[in-house]
């Protein structure tokens, strides 16, 4: 089955990003096709390259990057949200992590069209 994931929270704000990653790993292990992960709202902060997780915690950012390399899953950062949070490709202090790219909402539309399931992950506020 073809999936798209929609992630609205970064790793530091709640558990949704972590659960999304574990869900993605489960999809991979079961042989499903994860077409793309679309990060929106504060979820785009998952694409920051300069954040460090404590050594005794799962580094979700690097795991997303590794998953993208391993499975060819696209990691899209919503351009409108990225601009809101100051995440720009040419801003050194806010560099984008490997495997992530800034795209428009049209890519979410395209991913939804090409997927059989879309699953949203976001922490309540």
């Amino acid at each position: 089955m073809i999936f798209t994931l929609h992630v609205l929270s970064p790793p530091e704000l709640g558990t949704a990003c972590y659960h999304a990653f574990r869900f993605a790993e489960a999809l991979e292990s079961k042989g499903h096709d994860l077409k793309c992960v679309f990060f929106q709202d504060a979820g785009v902060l998952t694409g920051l390259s300069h954040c460090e997780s404590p050594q005794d915690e799962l580094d979700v950012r690097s795991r997303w990057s590794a998953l993208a390399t391993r499975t060819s899953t696209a990691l899209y950062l919503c351009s409108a949200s990225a601009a809101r949070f100051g995440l720009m490709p040419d801003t050194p202090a806010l560099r984008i992590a490997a495997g992530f790219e800034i795209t428009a909402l049209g890519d979410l539309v395209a991913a939804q069209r090409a997927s059989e399931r879309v699953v949203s992950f976001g922490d309540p506020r």
Partner: protein
Amino acid sequence: MTDSKPGAVAEGERTGPTIWIQQHPGAGLRARAGIDTALSFAVFEESPTVIFTSAGVCCLSVPWAAPAGRKSLRKLINSLPLYDIEQIFVDGRSLREYNISADELPGFAVIRSPEELSKLLHSQAPILSF
């Protein structure tokens, strides 16, 4: 129902994605992201269904829809019919909880009970939750 206009669809009829907005307009940018997403799907003729529940109904109240320093979400919501989203569904119980009267809602808003919205959500796929 055979109305071919995007957004003007019968409940239960399979259409484009459902955009489900539950966040208060003042609680970050998520509600705005939801409305932007609905507009994007509409632009691509994907006929989104838009549902407001919980604190998300405050996006429809003029006084609450414009957090300090930000554009009013209500103005953006008022523009939805221009993108052929001719109905939005609103949870009546949430309206009561937040003391919002039906008179405050845009004319194209349709009030539904939680049970009716639950059925609607179960008939729709995919659902993008904000």
